[in-house]
């Protein structure tokens, strides 16, 4: 009974959350009049309560911000190619958003209530600086929600001609509002990480300029990193949804549709993942430039082992993503010519993961230290440095890109006169990029650390340049290409779908881990070097404890999103590919590996 009362109270509070968001002034007054700095939450404590609320809110937010970005692209592909299947796919993506929006708002409200009740002094400080942006945030949230409703419910009404372009414009606006909402929220959390240098512990909040606080050192790098990560996350969740629907499909048509949807989701997730590390580099550099000590805490201090776990997770992502592609090649006529290369690509990926996940400094007992001859293992210690790790990850990116290229070209036969030359140039570019990466990786061992750090930039430039030029060449080369046969959508082994589940679970867990890293580097500061956390929960927990909270967040999110999708399925069945003949005819356009037309 007590539990039921608590749940009922929680739901009531959640429902009132938007009202609280709409009146931050009232919340501020309430906080200001509080006679205590901290509240306490039963069982798990205030820190974990806020942590879970914030993390689950962010997971939903990433989903509802990421999906519209590619939904609008897929809709545009449908308009340009006049292929209605893309339009239906974009609509199905958007359908997934509707109920997820409510969950995002509810968890946002839970977070606000937790902050006002558990951290009243901190919340007063934050709302005093950011009150205007909080009002704008609420306004934008309403506008965004109603734009989504118009976008989804107007889909069939504004289906053709100019009206269709107007509808597409709504999708674009949805992204504009969503991005603005995210940028505003990012300013609050990035201010906590990197407040302007002019702000000290004695600076009254009323004297802190909103614009200066908003445009702090890590604001824009976090914005860009999150924009890309949201696309990755949205793609992975859509892939997981499609995988479930594939496994549950009762007809060939359904299976073909969800096979294709899963492919698109995976394509989006892995494609965006490839560029995500570059945004991560920028964020990391800005953190170092803002405060060296914070950067050192992040990479070389108590959080250094977190990056070993991150390497393990990203290794799983690369392996699962590539496995899905390789398995999918079984349903593409002509792909068999690439099969002999797969084992070598797998070898590169596995070696890359092993190197990336190698720790530099080993925690060992006396006997182990004696056996190793020091704190650094004579062989593994060499692999644990950034020269080796950067080389490994860049080669893994090139290998994954190669998998995409093979998948993309599997059933195509180029007809342009320069096809052979073009293929040789493509191979040479990838080879040169790999050599540049290897060269700087090895050379890094012979120069000082300060010089070595700069080498990662050359490696990244070489890889990015190869990716862009090779893909551009391929698009040009495959214009008017002959088909070696249609992709047999739906003829995918069931085990491949479990790779998509592993991807979505891993992306979600990784998001939680990175959330801990970003927030944890502030250590015992609510606002770094401005407002100290003097609560009983000020200590930043070790990774093991953090992992348990992250796992709880992941299970809450996945459980809720599964429930939401199930609910969505009760309301409306998506329109699938109607004609049986189409099930073996692949969709055309940019997202398909099939020749256009």
């Amino acid at each position: 009974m007590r539990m039921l009362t608590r749940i009922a109270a929680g739901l009531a509070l959640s429902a009132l959350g938007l009202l609280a968001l709409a009146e931050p002034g009232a919340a501020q007054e309430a906080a200001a009049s509080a006679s205590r700095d901290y509240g306490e939450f039963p069982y798990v404590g205030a820190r974990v309560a806020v942590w879970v609320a914030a993390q689950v809110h962010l997971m939903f937010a990433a989903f509802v911000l990421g999906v519209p970005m590619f939904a609008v692209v897929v809709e545009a592909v449908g308009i340009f190619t006049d292929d209605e299947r893309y339009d239906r796919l974009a609509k199905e993506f958007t359908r997934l958003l509707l109920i997820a929006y409510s969950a995002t708002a509810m968890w946002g409200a839970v977070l606000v209530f937790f902050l006002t009740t558990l951290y009243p002094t901190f919340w007063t400080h934050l709302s005093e600086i950011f009150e205007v942006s909080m009002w704008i945030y609420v306004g934008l949230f309403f506008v965004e929600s109603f734009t989504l409703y118009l976008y989804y419910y107007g889909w069939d009404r504004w289906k053709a001609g100019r009206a269709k372009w107007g509808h597409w414009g709504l999708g674009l606006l949805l992204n504009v509002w969503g991005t603005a909402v995210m940028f505003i929220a990012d300013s609050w959390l990035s201010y906590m990480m990197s407040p302007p240098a002019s702000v000290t512990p004695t600076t009254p909040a009323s004297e802190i300029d909103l614009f200066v606080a908003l445009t702090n050192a890590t604001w824009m790098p976090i914005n860009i990193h999150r924009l890309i990560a949201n696309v990755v996350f949205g793609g992975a969740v859509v892939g997981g949804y499609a995988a479930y629907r594939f496994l549950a499909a009762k007809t060939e048509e359904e299976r073909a549709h969800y096979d294709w949807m899963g492919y698109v989701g995976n394509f989006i997730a892995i494609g965006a993942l490839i560029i995500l590390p570059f945004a991560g580099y920028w964020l990391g550099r800005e953190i170092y430039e803002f405060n060296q000590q914070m950067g050192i805490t992040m990479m070389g201090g108590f959080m250094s082992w977190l990056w070993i776990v991150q390497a393990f997770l990203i290794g799983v992502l690369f392996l699962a993503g590539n496995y899905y592609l390789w398995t999918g090649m079984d349903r593409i006529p002509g792909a068999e010519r690439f099969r002999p290369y797969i084992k070598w690509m797998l070898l590169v990926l596995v070696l890359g993961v092993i190197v990336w996940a190698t720790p530099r400094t080993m925690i060992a007992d006396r006997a182990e230290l004696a056996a190793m001859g020091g704190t650094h293992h004579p062989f593994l210690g060499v692999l644990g440095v950034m020269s080796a790790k950067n080389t490994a990850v860049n080669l893994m990116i090139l290998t994954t890109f190669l998998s995409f290229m093979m998948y993309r070209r599997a059933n195509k036969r180029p007809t342009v006169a320069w096809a052979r030359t073009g293929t040789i140039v493509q191979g040479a570019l990838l080879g040169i990029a790999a050599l540049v990466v290897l060269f700087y990786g090895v050379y890094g061992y012979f120069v000082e650390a300060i010089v070595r750090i700069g080498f990662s930039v050359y490696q990244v430039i070489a890889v990015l340049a190869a990716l862009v030029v090779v893909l551009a060449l391929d698009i040009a080369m495959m214009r008017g290409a002959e088909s070696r046969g249609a992709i047999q959508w739906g003829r995918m082994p069931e085990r491949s779908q479990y790779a998509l589940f592993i991807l979505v679970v891993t992306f979600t867990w990784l998001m939680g881990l990175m959330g801990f890293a970003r927030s944890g580097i502030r250590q015992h500061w609510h606002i770094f070097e401005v407002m100290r956390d003097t609560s009983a929960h000020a200590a930043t927990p070790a990774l093991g404890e953090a992992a348990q909270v992250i796992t709880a967040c992941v299970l809450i999110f996945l459980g809720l999103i599964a429930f939401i999708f199930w609910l969505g399925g009760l309301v409306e069945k998506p329109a699938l590919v109607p004609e049986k003949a189409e099930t073996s005819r692949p969709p055309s356009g940019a997202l398909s590996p099939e020749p256009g037309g």
Partner: protein
Amino acid sequence: MWQTNLKVLSVVLVTVALYTGVANWIPQVESAPPEELSFTGDVSAEELVAAGEELFLGAGGCAACHGSGTRAPNLRTSEDDLGTIGERCDDRVSGEDCKTYLHESLVNPTAYVVEGYGAIMPDASRTLSPAQIWSLVAYLQSLGGEVTVTGADIQAEPGAGGAEAGEAAAASPLIAGGSTDPMEILEAGTCLACHALDGQGGPIGPPLDGIGARRDAAHIRRSILDPSADTTEGYENVAGTMPPNFGQQMSAAQLEAVVRFLAEEEGG
């Protein structure tokens, strides 16, 4: 369908369990906030040094840079043969004594940037209280020099003072409970597991019998604080075996007691 649901659920649970397991399997390090210190005017040098040492090695975050020797000067070991920080601080700035120089370097770190290093150190007064900063100064002085910081320095700071010595100093987890008896320290620190002395101990590392005749006090101190700095001939195969953190487990007084004891151990 239930079979599919169960399979999917199993994949999800096994995956998150694996990640949670990996995160729990690696070394666990918590970041605790620095404990507040409050000292009376008659606080002893030992109390200040102990509190400063704990800050330096722990929540103060100093050791992350001032121990690796690449980001910032080593303070606990000799830098450019000038000795540890306590030995060299008096000569760093002409006309400025060690205490003033160290305090200035903590609260105004760009004032004296050591050649060859970047100006990356943050202003300690943004994160630490005056009592914490002065205890750090005392600790750094104790590394080869004389501790001249007193309670009066702390009391002179605006808003400083207090009744009792900080809990950090009291709760310091030192070898042998902070005892300055050198034999107790050597035994509690398991030094004799590898080094032979007076018929006790193992043969893994160089014997301590007669060490004072072969090495001076500075060399012994360096060997404890930075065991990989020198390798005794004939023991190259076990170089790096000695844990580098003994210095972190002893107070300055304990370290000096052991150094003195071993320097006087001339055998015969």
